[in-house]
């Protein structure tokens, strides 16, 4: 019953995303055929291309045809230059996900580092304040300038061909990680400090349990639940943040593709991006729901 309920909920959510994205882009008062052919093309040629792209059909027919196709993972081809949408979006998602992965690693290292001792917790407290109050576009530009000036890896070739491409990613990943790093570290430190004062920790100290075991096995395990909840809440911000970071660092990920597709009114590409984005959020939500119950057995699938 649980599975049926969840599947029905998420399927309806997905359908809503598809419908919303389709209607939104087809309501925009602009003609993709005209944008593809430019300002010099004759009206007859524009009408011919509209027919070829299926834009002359009623909206509901266009929607049903589209729905039929995407069930077979056929997202169509770009209006602008005929690139297959699915392949293009997946390729770009891989780059964005790599960026997000790198920043998750940075966050993980930083937040764990911040709870190691009282002294480090104090340093992290000040750093968190700085990270939270610095907007991405500012820290991004600052780091980009420093990167270009001092790093030998100031260029990403577009695919992961050399070590340099991976090293380059550390800079945008760090910028992307800054804000969530501040938030998550603060939550974890506050939670840790609260737990470290509680009775069972005092008892564990009295029994002579090693400090490291108390910190990581008893306190951290309890503090991690709100941390995971906050983490899952921050995930959408990772993707929107990634879009800004991609523009600043010229990373050809999903953000740059989205901006280009909006400017070119490339509807199939835009719909593909939004649907894939929606799918990723649904999957991560499902993942975190499972992780909660694994970390804390008190949370049941009910």
């Amino acid at each position, binding site marked *: 019953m649980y599975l049926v309920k969840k599947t029905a909920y998420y399927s309806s959510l997905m359908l809503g995303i598809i419908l919303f994205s389709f209607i939104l882009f087809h309501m925009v*008062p*602009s*003609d993709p055929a*005209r*944008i*593809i*052919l*430019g*300002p*010099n*093309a*004759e*009206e*007859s*040629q524009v*009408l*011919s*291309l509209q*027919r*070829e792209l299926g834009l002359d059909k009623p909206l509901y027919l266009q929607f049903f045809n589209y729905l039929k196709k995407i069930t077979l993972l056929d997202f169509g081809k770009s209006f*602008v*230059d*005929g*690139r*297959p949408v699915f*392949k293009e979006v997946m390729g770009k998602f891989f780059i964005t996900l790599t960026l997000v992965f790198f920043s998750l690693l940075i966050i993980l290292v930083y937040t764990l580092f911040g709870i190691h001792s009282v002294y480090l917790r104090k340093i992290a407290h000040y750093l968190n304040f700085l990270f939270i109050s610095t907007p991405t576009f500012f820290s991004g530009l600052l780091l*980009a*300038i420093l990167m*270009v*000036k001092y790093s*030998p*890896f*100031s*260029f*990403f*070739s*577009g*695919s992961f061909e*050399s*070590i*340099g491409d991976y*090293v380059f990613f550390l800079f945008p990943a760090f910028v992307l990680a800054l804000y969530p790093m501040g938030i998550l570290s603060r939550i974890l430190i506050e939670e840790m400090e609260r737990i470290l004062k509680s009775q069972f920790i005092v008892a564990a100290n009295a029994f002579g349990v090693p400090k490291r075991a108390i910190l990581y096995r008893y306190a951290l395990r309890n503090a991690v639940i709100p941390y995971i909840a906050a983490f899952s809440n921050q995930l959408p911000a990772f993707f929107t943040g990634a879009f800004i970071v991609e*523009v*600043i660092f*010229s990373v*050809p990920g999903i953000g*740059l593709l989205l901006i*280009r597709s909006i*400017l*070119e*009114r490339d509807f199939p590409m835009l719909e593909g991006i939004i649907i894939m984005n929606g799918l990723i959020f649904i999957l991560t939500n499902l993942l975190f729901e499972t992780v909660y119950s694994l970390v804390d057995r008190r949370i049941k699938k009910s």
Partner: protein
Amino acid sequence: MAYANLGSANRGKKLRRKRLVNRAYYTPLIILLVIILVVIFSCGRKKESSRLVIGLNTQIERLNPITIKNPQTFQVAWQIYEGLLDLDESGQIVPRIAERWETEDNKVWVFHIRKGVTFHRSEIFDTPSKTRNVTSHDVLHSFTSFCSPGAYPSFVLADSIKGCAEYSAGKAKRVKGLRVVDDYTFEIELNKPEPFFLYRITSPWIAIFPKEANIEKYKDRWGLDIAVGTGPYRLLSKTDNQIVLVRNEDYWDKSRIPKIEKLVFRVIKNDQMRFSELLKNKIDLMILPNSLFFSVFDTDGNPKQKYKRRFKFKEIKTFNHHFIGVNIKKIRDIHLRRAMFYGTNRKEMVKKVLLGYADILSGAIPPGMNGYIPTFKRIYDPDKAKKELKQSKYDGREIELLVHDLASSEQICQVFQKQMKNIGINIKLTKLDFNSVIGRMVKGDVELFSMFAEIVFSSPEPLLLNLFSTKKIPVPNFWHYSNPNTDKRLEELRNLTDRNASLKACAEIEREIMEYVPAIFLYRQNQVVMFSNAFSNLKINSHNHYMFEKMEKLH
């Protein structure tokens, strides 16, 4: 007490052992880390001897000749593809894939395809050598593709070639005017005689590519990881941020085999970052964007001494022009239009925003285009502007001017707004993205719009026919200019076979058109290319075709 001492001695031993163990672990780790860092840093600084790295500011489009529209993509594509003809640096027509051509009536043009021109080696060819000769069948395929409904440059040929407009509108199955006579002879029949037809196809935009591009299994890859032409460079790899081209050793013109082995095009969108890369010698060449003019040049427009020592500068006069279009249907008052025309101080605009790197325009035809000389002598005349304004019925209302985010449109129009204010005209600037401005221009619901155009024709006749014929309303005659006399005189150009007479007629027609002010043509911007002084012999023609094959690296 004794126990306590014993305990502390043991603890001391333990600590020493722990330190030793730690040192044993950490020393190789630190050495390994240093080695990794040295390898990484040396990788980053590796540079090949014969390559030129070019910095670009926008992402490269698919390298499919029929969909390319971005001038930055042309820089790449025109190393790979060639057309039947080209222009040299001085603007003269030079034969490329067409060895020679002839016409008797200026209506039917016969092109003789050069024998021995081969396409780049590629998997799309089934032949054992993975290449084959270019034949007139490829020319037919390419020209037909340029007339297809999805082709961006179809406007270049649609009016001219018989049946091209019908094919692009989806009303015909083939282009009637294109014929293969034999494997090496190709015939083009036009709707009407055009002594200036060759000037329509001198741009490498109208490139020749193999008919195998249409094979189903290569269709999705064409222009992405497969791009096959006949040019001096061939595609080695393409990602979103980097394209690598390598010298075509089999190039048909042995005198033009490139001296530089590899061309690397890198996309670095941020102007400042791209410039920093140039200063660090990580890229060798870039076009200077307007935003950097004030850091690179002094107030007189000369390169600053610190850059002069390390870099060369080349100014290119291309066939592009910037203008403020006027919708005659919306601004019917001719005196108001003339007031705006004479009240525009183009020199001030160019000096303030572009540090003088532009040539002032009075009409649509860029000076120097195929020997064209403009006839207007004095175009900025504030007294005349005020006089015209007095004669007009202008009531002081705000006139909307659409500006966009490209080519300093907003800054230029701010200067224009101020100049109009000085003569008593109120202008309101509305900023939209470039495509939205085009959308509203086409719809015709705008009064004034800022725009620029990369001109594909290399002679004034097709340009005037395209922009000012009545039948071209609403696109690309966005200004809704209609004058039966102009139409008649434009048609007469088709019978003028003498070049000088034709150019003189163009100048007179342009003068007549500008009397009605369908647009305020502002300037032709001169591109400034900044490149490392380790290179020399950079040649660029007016179509903005970078002939990198002529470039050399100095030792």
